[in-house]
């Protein structure tokens, strides 16, 4: 083709404008040149070192793993995410490119939003990797239940908000000290917020690191028998979304036209309003009977209904039945209880099965929470013995199956015997003696050299040590009414030894005839065989 034969263009060729495509290209560019990408190895290393191993040490229960991951991921990610976002926000000023970038066709706020979005995407990718590993392993290990998604939503919203806070700080106060001070300052605020939480009606529960009653150790029973109450999660997401919107609105303020400024002010005000409302809502929370924070304005009554499940049961004359989430503990629990259950099976008033139930929670002073069994242990017709595993009462550190079995033998076994003979601090000497004798025969603790008062059964107190850490319920003297505290030099103990020495058939025959009178406190020590 020669110049003469080339077609003459009378007007410029129309180029189709595709703003979406150019934004995508800009986003790709920002993704490739983003500080958060280089911060990811640090964030993942911190997560692996501090959180992954600790979370994996927990029993494979969805509620434990999900809430623990929530708290730990927020704490691990806040520093790298805010720091990287502040670096990206201050990039133009640090490289003295502000004037040059102002002359580009794209509005400043739109350009900055793309940079923020890229930073947030990398942060979410990092969190997603942590989440995928923890949830995949838990799905493989858990015997029952499914993943909890509200803690995931709160953590993801936290990552987005941290990114917005860091980015806004970097944009509005560019400087070499901005990124480190914002990163450390955000961590300081996070730690400080948890220090100020007092009770379940604290406004500070809005802190995204909070996944439930603060200072209460992770409890395997929470969100196992009843659904996960997401009231606090909703308030936290609302707060974080409001914070994000307010921060991004503030980013658009400087060096923008009057119209953009007005719009950004409205957006920022809406964000502040949403965040303030969420804080107000968090302050109305209360600890519900199932161990979670309920906020009346956000509460769904359906979450008060128990989760339907088919318990897993052992074989035997009196089966032991546990929530399927605890199925890994069933063989050990059933094995340690089988001697005592064999001993009492078929006696009048003996339970027909032992079944695990939910604990009830009550808010005490400050952050103290008491946990216990609602009503008596022996209920129903035919009677069932309602069981709280030590895991449900003592909180962390979590027990191995061997440790759990030991505690069940020492506390639940004597409690079953005590419920059969109605033993307790106010029971007669004969009741103490028979309970102790049955415990001895089953290889459970039945006497002590400690002359003090028995520890109340099925009750614990949690919280700071300085505000009153209650003794955990384990070992001799716990859970068996008074039998476990029977003084070895007392006449009751001697009577118990005498009764325990009888053949099992003779014991059962006597109990079959006299158990009702024994429960009523009408039998004296002298009347025991």
């Amino acid at each position, binding site marked *: 083709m020669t110049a003469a034969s080339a077609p003459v263009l009378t007007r410029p060729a129309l180029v189709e404008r595709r703003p979406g495509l150019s934004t995508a290209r800009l986003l790709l560019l920002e993704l490739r040149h983003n*500080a958060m990408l280089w*911060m990811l190895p*640090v964030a993942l*290393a*911190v997560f692996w*070192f*501090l959180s992954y191993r600790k979370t994996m040490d927990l029993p494979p229960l969805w509620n434990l793993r999900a809430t623990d991951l929530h708290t730990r991921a927020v*704490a*691990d990610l806040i*520093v*790298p995410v805010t*720091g990287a976002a502040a*670096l990206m926000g201050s990039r133009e000023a*640090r*490289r*003295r490119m502000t004037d040059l970038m102002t002359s580009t066709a794209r509005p400043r706020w739109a350009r900055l939003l793309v940079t923020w979005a890229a930073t947030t995407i990398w942060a979410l990718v990092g969190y997603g990797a942590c989440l995928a590993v923890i949830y995949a392993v838990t799905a493989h290990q858990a015997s029952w239940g499914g993943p909890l998604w509200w803690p995931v939503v709160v953590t993801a919203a936290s990552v987005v908000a941290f990114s917005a806070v860091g980015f806004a700080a970097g944009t509005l106060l560019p400087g*070499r*000290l901005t*990124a*480190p*001070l914002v*990163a*450390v*300052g955000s*961590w*300081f605020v996070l*730690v*400080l917020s948890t*220090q100020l939480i007092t009770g379940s009606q604290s406004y500070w529960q809005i802190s995204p690191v909070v996944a439930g009653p603060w200072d209460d150790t992770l409890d395997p029973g929470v969100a196992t028998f009843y659904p996960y109450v997401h009231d606090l999660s909703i308030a936290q997401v609302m707060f974080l979304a409001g914070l994000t919107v307010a921060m991004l609105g503030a980013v658009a303020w400087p060096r923008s036209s009057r119209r953009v400024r007005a719009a950004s002010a409205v957006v920022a005000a809406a964000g502040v309003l949403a965040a303030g409302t969420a804080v107000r809502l968090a302050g109305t929370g209360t600890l519900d009977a199932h161990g979670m924070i309920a906020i009346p304005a956000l509460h769904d009554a359906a979450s008060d209904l128990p989760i339907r499940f088919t318990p897993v049961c052992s074989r035997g004359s009196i089966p032991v039945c546990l929530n399927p989430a605890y199925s890994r503990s069933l063989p050990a629990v059933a094995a340690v209880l089988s001697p005592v259950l064999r001993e009492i099976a078929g006696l009048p008033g003996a339970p027909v099965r032992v079944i695990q139930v939910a604990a009830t929670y009550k808010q005490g002073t400050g952050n103290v929470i008491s946990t216990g069994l609602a009503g008596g242990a022996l209920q129903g017709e035919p009677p069932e013995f309602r069981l709280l595993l030590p895991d449900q009462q003592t909180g*962390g*550190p979590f027990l191995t199956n061997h440790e759990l079995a030991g505690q069940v033998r020492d506390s639940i076994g004597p409690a079953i015997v005590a419920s059969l003979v109605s033993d307790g601090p106010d029971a007669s000497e004969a009741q103490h003696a028979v309970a102790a004798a049955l415990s001895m025969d089953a290889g459970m603790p039945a006497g002590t050299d400690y002359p003090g008062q028995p520890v109340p059964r099925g009750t614990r107190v949690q919280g*700071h040590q*300085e505000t009153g850490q209650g003794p955990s319920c384990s070992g001799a003297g716990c859970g068996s009414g008074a039998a476990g505290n029977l003084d070895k030099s007392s006449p009751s103990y001697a009577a118990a030894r005498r009764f325990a020495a009888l053949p099992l058939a003779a014991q059962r025959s006597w109990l079959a005839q006299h158990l009702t009178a024994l429960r009523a406190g009408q039998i004296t020590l002298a009347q025991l065989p």
Partner: protein
Amino acid sequence: MSAQRVAEMRPALASVSHPAWASGLRLVWLHATSRRFPAALGALAACAIGLRIALIGHWDAYGALQLPLIIEAASVCVLTVSTASPLGEPERVAGRWLPWLRLGSVVMLTAVAVGALAAGAVGGHLSGGILDVLRNVAGLTGIGLLCAALVGGGVAWIGPTAYMIAGVYALYTQWHSPAVTTPWMWPGRPPHDLGAELCAGLVFTCGLALFAVRGARDRAGE
């Protein structure tokens, strides 16, 4: 100006030249201002004030140990970021006294950071005392200097902040077993623990030596 003219002016210039110590002082001042030391000193003072305010509150055991560590980390971040040079390669080529200037400036800033925090703690109950502050600040500074030499002064704060999170966790495990007892996690060790002091001191020495010799890994213009 021709070479002959310069030769003529040399005696006159010599008569107005300052003594050697004055030029040395000027060099130190230029080095300090290029690293924005005045701003850093202001930030260190702010950290000390922050510590003083934090010590007014009545914290439980967690807060009493963790909040000072966070403020110590903030001080170290300020110090570490101040190692970044805006001049880059040209300064490295021309600066014969740079290793000594780096060494002196970092030691001076570390001393100022410890001194400011100690002053901030006067009248309040600082958990672990000044010895704890000295150990933590020295160790964190060592990590920051190593990061400055390896990844750059502008982002060297990443090391101390990541270590701060691990340190806070080490303190947390004092109440939640299994406790982190390795001396390399010195914030979790008692103030007079020799192993922790040695580890923190070793990291500080290594960081200081590497930074003095190589300087921060920075590009000019940022």
